[in-house]
């Protein structure tokens, strides 16, 4: 099932095009990592899909139906940039307000407790502590707890890792994975922290200057991010010739680093090069990271 499909979605601010004819598809179960530089249009797109701003042109559909309306809104939740919380209330009071907004009925207390437990905020269930005294990580998790009240099928998180300490990042990552695996929630997550995003995302969309330049699955990214061997040598040019002479063709030289993209047996290479008087000071095997992939895609612009 398609959770979100945008069709030529565009947003202009006067003469500036913030989002330019974006056609994006997010399928059920995806954790869609939305990647782009500052001002690329990530937040603007999330705001359009959440109904906070109106598109200049184009359209989008949620759950294979129309755009955001009362019916689809009950299945989505969003945390856009900063957490949207009543800072003068406690966590439970915030949940109660949210329950009123959504229109929940029945025994809500159990639901509130379940939501707080799920996001790892069980310590604030009985607490009279106002939200203004929470850490940023706690506020982020409480924001997610609020969105969980409506039992959403689709969550939009804009920079959820921003400002979190390492412990907070790990806990946010685990929460996203758990919600995806256990509750089947589909995610659209924008983030600058690409390495962190790569640990949770199953699909990626790369946006640059408002244009969605590539959509790729995790599997495709792995297959494109070829494994390669980096050797640091004292004579790079001679190393290049030596490697070519033994049939290794996919080689790049960067200073004293020689990158070999062919599959090789390291011991044979070391032996062959040392016989030619070339000294190897370091050898490492690397995969192309998501950051390298992103930079390559941007052509060094980002």
């Amino acid at each position, binding site marked *: 099932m398609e959770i979100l499909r945008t069709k030529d979605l565009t947003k202009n601010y006067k003469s500036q095009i913030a989002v330019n004819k974006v056609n994006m598809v997010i399928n059920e179960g995806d954790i869609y990592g939305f990647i782009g530089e500052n001002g690329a249009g990530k937040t603007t797109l999330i705001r359009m899909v959440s*109904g906070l701003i109106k598109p200049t042109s184009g359209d989008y559909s949620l759950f294979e139906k129309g755009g955001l309306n009362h019916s689809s*809104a009950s299945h989505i939740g969003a945390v856009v940039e900063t957490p949207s*919380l009543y800072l003068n*209330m406690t966590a439970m009071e915030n949940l109660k*307000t949210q329950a009123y*907004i959504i229109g929940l009925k029945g025994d809500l207390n159990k639901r509130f407790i379940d939501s707080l437990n799920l996001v790892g905020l069980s310590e604030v269930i009985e607490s009279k502590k106002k939200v203004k005294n929470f850490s940023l990580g706690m506020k982020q998790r409480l924001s997610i707890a609020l969105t969980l009240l409506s039992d959403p099928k689709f969550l939009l998180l804009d920079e959820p890792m921003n400002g979190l300490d390492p412990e907070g990042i790990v806990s946010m990552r685990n929460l996203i994975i758990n919600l995806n695996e256990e509750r089947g929630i589909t995610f659209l997550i924008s983030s600058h922290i690409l390495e962190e995003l790569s640990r949770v995302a199953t699909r990626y969309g790369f946006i640059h200057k408002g244009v969605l330049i590539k959509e790729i699955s995790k599997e495709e990214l792995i297959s494109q991010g070829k494994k390669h061997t980096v050797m640091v040598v004292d004579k790079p040019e001679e190393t290049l010739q030596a490697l070519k002479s033994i049939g290794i063709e996919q080689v790049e030289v960067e200073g004293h680093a020689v990158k070999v993209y062919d599959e090789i047996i390291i011991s044979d290479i070391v032996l062959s090069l040392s016989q030619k008087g070339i000294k190897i000071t370091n050898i490492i095997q690397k995969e192309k990271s998501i950051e390298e992939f992103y930079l390559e895609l941007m052509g060094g612009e980002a």
Partner: protein
Amino acid sequence: MKNLLKADFFRLCKDKSALVGLIITAALSIVSVVLMYVVFYLILEIPPGALDGSDSIPGIPVLTGEYFMKSVFQSSNNAGIVLAIVIGMIATKDFSFNTIRQKTIHGHSRTNIYLSQFITIVVYAAVVMIINAVISLALGSIFFGYSASGFEASDLLYIVYSFGMGLLMYTVIISLVLMISFLVKSTGITIVIVIGLSFLLSMVYSILVMTGGSNDIVQFFLNLLPDQHFAWYLSNHWMASKELIYSLAMSTLYIVLFTTLGITMFNRTDIK
């Protein structure tokens, strides 16, 4: 809409500024009655009859419980300004906390969000105003007497009329403050504009009165001002039918105008 109203009333109950607003306005109402008593009776030693309408001094208002009760609803008195500021603070809180997003994301129309906020604030202002009016009426009656002619059973209906008219006139201010709040979305700027507008309106009204209320053109503009409607309300026991109809019509028109403008602007703006 019902869900939004529940959420807004719950939020209001948890908002300390709402309670602080009630306490400050009540304190100001008490102080203004006591202060008048101390100044006129104890310091200036003006004879009691001169202040209760039976033998009033020109330029000095006829001070009675009825007068104090009605003056509570005046937007330019101390309690009126404080309440307008508190209303601005309550209305902009959803923007400063970004909680307006949650309402929008959950599919509530902006018109409903605006109207829910409007209803909540009108109810809050009505509660505050009525509490203040009752305090002023009680204290004013104790210190100055209810009115020159004393209290009669038929005055109960008059009190209901006074509350109704006063609230209608103050709702003009509420709708204006709410429109400004949704336009600027900032507590600080809203407060500055509310205070500025309050002084500006009073100044314009005073200038128009001084430059000739008898001139037809000046009188026309004067009649448009809420201050003029309030002056009719305050200076007459029952308003004359022509003035009453004019005040009712103009107040309703202002409320509809400001609310429609506010909703239209809110529907056109993006939420951050």
